[in-house]
């Protein structure tokens, strides 16, 4: 075992695999001291805050979250993290419990506990080397089982040691073990996800981002209100209304996934700790309440993990849909390239026939001219397609809508002036969207190009019934931004509306027939949509392209 551990130790130091900013905290030894000291202080504080209704005045409490902090610390910093863990446990024993035994007993007991927690941390890390303890339901259950079994083993060793140093009578061994087991496994189970979410910068950012909305405030308030009712309004000791806590918890978990569940369970635990601290609770009831809280937390975590999993699958599905579209693109590419290639090879063959005849030199020159036109056309096709393929990987960045539209629309405004087309952009909302700027620019360019070609057809008609006009309208709702690009061109027959999104469906003689297919693929890759509607307004017919983009585009997957 030791040998295997030694072999594994390099990868176990979480340097490259965990996307974390370690160098600052890790390499210069001196700089790590503040972290270690902060850890010990936090450990002692947690032990103190959770030292409620202890059994026999020992470290056997209904809820013991401090080990969770220790385990996360060891997972992050490796075996060396076990030393501050030992110091923290010993300091707690001295500060919080005034050292129930002698120095030797404290050192022995702290040694047993810190070794046990470090081993548990190592086992957890071994089974999820990438630190994804809660990514999938299966990971979550494996983690839970390790926590429960691990704390039973550590508890057996610890309670036996208590008996051995004479702090616990032998006949209380079993009761002590059960107390320890429940307190520790519940404490680790409830607190470790929170500490894990907060243990590095990337996860902290994700935690804050996920919680930063009004729903968090509302369910937190509901939770505090329920806790108040449970402990202050209902003065019986049976805590009949405790189950109402399921409500805000399920809400949090189903809306914000595991992070919501972790956060709301933490509020619940903090509430219980405060209630216990102020002696609102009978001696035994905290233990019972803790078991109920455990069940609530378990349900919340399971829902949270399932929700995360479901959101991830949805994001993966979107990616797959994108690949399918890319397959269609390949077909379209073949078509678009083959047309000019066919012409090229036929012109070339014609040149071969003309080349031997001096009297046909003029014709040869003409054919060569047409041949080079085809080369030009081919390179246009490639350039237009490159737009899409170059931006194949979606890179999301916050982009102010107004900036984006100003850049896209500028060339079209010139074109509109020159050709007498009315081009109106209704005032745009001042929002910032998370999107791939290049790709979304392509979408707007395609939509505008399409609209301009449609109304140009109109103005070519001998007696246009109305002035050609293009309009951009936008609407903002809570969750999405809707932008309509409306033209009053000849329109599209009702039964072939959807076909415009198929590759090669262009109705234009020189069109690529790809622009709208690409645009829809891009919109969907951003979690939005692109639809087409017929217009039957008094101002004429024409079509309306409706682009919808989620305001939190990218959340839940694209970036992964």
């Amino acid at each position: 075992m030791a040998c295997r551990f030694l072999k594994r130790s390099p990868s176990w130091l979480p340097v490259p695999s965990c996307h974390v900013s370690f160098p600052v905290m890790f390499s210069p030894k001196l700089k790590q001291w503040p972290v270690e000291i902060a850890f010990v202080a936090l450990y002692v504080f947690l032990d103190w805050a959770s030292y409620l209704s202890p059994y026999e005045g020992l470290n056997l409490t209904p809820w013991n979250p401090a080990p969770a902090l220790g385990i996360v610390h060891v997972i992050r910093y490796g075996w060396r993290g076990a030393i501050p863990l030992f110091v923290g446990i010993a300091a707690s024993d001295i500060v919080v419990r005034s050292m129930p035994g002698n120095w030797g007993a404290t050192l022995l007991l702290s040694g047993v506990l810190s070794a046990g927690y470090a081993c548990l941390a190592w086992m957890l890390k071994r089974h999820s080397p990438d630190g994804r303890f809660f990514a999938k339901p299966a990971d979550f259950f494996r983690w839970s089982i390790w926590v429960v079994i691990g704390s039973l083993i550590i508890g057996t060793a610890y309670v036996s040691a208590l008996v051995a140093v004479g702090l616990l009578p032998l006949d209380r061994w079993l009761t002590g073990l059960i107390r320890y087991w429940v307190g520790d496994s519940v404490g680790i189970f409830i607190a470790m996800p929170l500490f894990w979410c907060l243990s590095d910068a990337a996860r902290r950012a994700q935690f804050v981002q996920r919680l930063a909305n009004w729903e968090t405030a509302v369910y937190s308030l509901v939770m505090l209100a329920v806790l108040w009712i449970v402990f202050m309004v209902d003065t019986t000791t049976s805590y009949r209304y405790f189950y109402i806590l399921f409500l805000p918890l399920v809400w949090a978990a189903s809306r914000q996934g595991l992070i919501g569940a972790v956060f709301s369970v933490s509020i619940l635990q903090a509430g219980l700790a405060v209630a216990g601290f102020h002696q609102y609770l009978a001696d035994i009831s905290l233990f019972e309440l803790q078991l109920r809280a455990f069940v609530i937390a378990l349900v919340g975590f399971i829902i949270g993990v399932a929700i995360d999993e479901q959101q991830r699958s949805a994001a993966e599905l979107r990616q797959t849909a994108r690949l399918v579209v890319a397959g269609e693109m390949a077909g379209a590419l073949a078509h678009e390239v083959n047309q000019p290639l066919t012409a090229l090879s036929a012109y070339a063959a014609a040149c071969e026939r003309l080349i031997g005849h001096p009297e046909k030199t003029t014709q040869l020159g003409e054919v060569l001219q047409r041949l080079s036109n085809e080369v030009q056309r081919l390179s246009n096709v490639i350039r237009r397609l490159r737009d899409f393929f170059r931006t194949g990987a979606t890179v999301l960045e916050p982009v102010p809508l107004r900036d984006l539209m100003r850049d896209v629309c500028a060339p079209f405004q010139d074109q509109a002036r020159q050709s007498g087309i009315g081009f109106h952009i209704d005032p745009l909302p001042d929002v910032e969207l998370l999107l791939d700027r290049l790709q979304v620019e392509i979408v707007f360019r395609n939509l505008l190009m399409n609209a301009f070609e449609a109304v140009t057809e109109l103005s070519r008609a001998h007696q246009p019934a109305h002035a050609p006009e293009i309009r951009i309208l936008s609407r903002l709702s809570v969750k999405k931004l809707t932008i309509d690009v409306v033209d009053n061109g000849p329109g599209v027959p009702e039964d072939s509306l959807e076909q415009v999104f198929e590759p090669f469906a262009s109705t234009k003689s020189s069109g690529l027939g790809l622009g709208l297919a690409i645009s829809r693929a891009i919109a969907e890759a951003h979690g939005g949509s692109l639809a087409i509607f017929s217009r039957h307004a008094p101002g004429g017919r024409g079509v309306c392209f409706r682009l919808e983009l989620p305001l939190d585009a990218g959340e839940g997957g694209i970036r992964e």
Partner: protein
Amino acid sequence: MSNTVFIVDDDASVRDSLSLLLGLRGYRTILFADAESFLGAYRSDWRGCVLLDLRMQGMDGLALQRTLRERGVTLPVIIVTGHGDVRSAREAFRQFAVDFLEKPVDERHLVAAIEEAFAQQSAELKHLQQTQDFLARMATLTPREKEVLQWVIAGRHNREIAEILDISVRTVEVHKARMMSKLDASSIPQLMRMSLGTLEHRER
């Protein structure tokens, strides 16, 4: 009307280049930008073959091919496509396409396909001519001669025919000789072949 290659393709450059190349090789070409204009212009005395693109705005190549067959147009069809798949190739051949070429198309393959289409068409026309001649000659037969022909084709001997029609064997022989000469048939097997072709043609 002499053999002509009718090019139906929605891409102007493809039409122009193919027509130039085929023109230099001595073929007459007529160009159409879509299926509808081809159908609108079609005349039954057109001879040659159709070079047909699959993917076109409006009616696509396969639909045009189907429509032509439904209207009894016997112009052979060569499919030229930039994105052929098994499904469309199968469909094209089920509709008796001469060939299924992929863009960019090789000059030699194209010319070979056109020659094959022309050959196929002249065979078809020759057959059609023979059938029509035969039918015209049939029309000159008297009712009695037609009866005799029917029984000869059914494989009966003169004596049997005489019995069935209740006339003398000698009279049957006279009718038969006159019928054979009117139909320009030198032997019974040849007569059989000619009449079989007619039946076959009528079934199609």
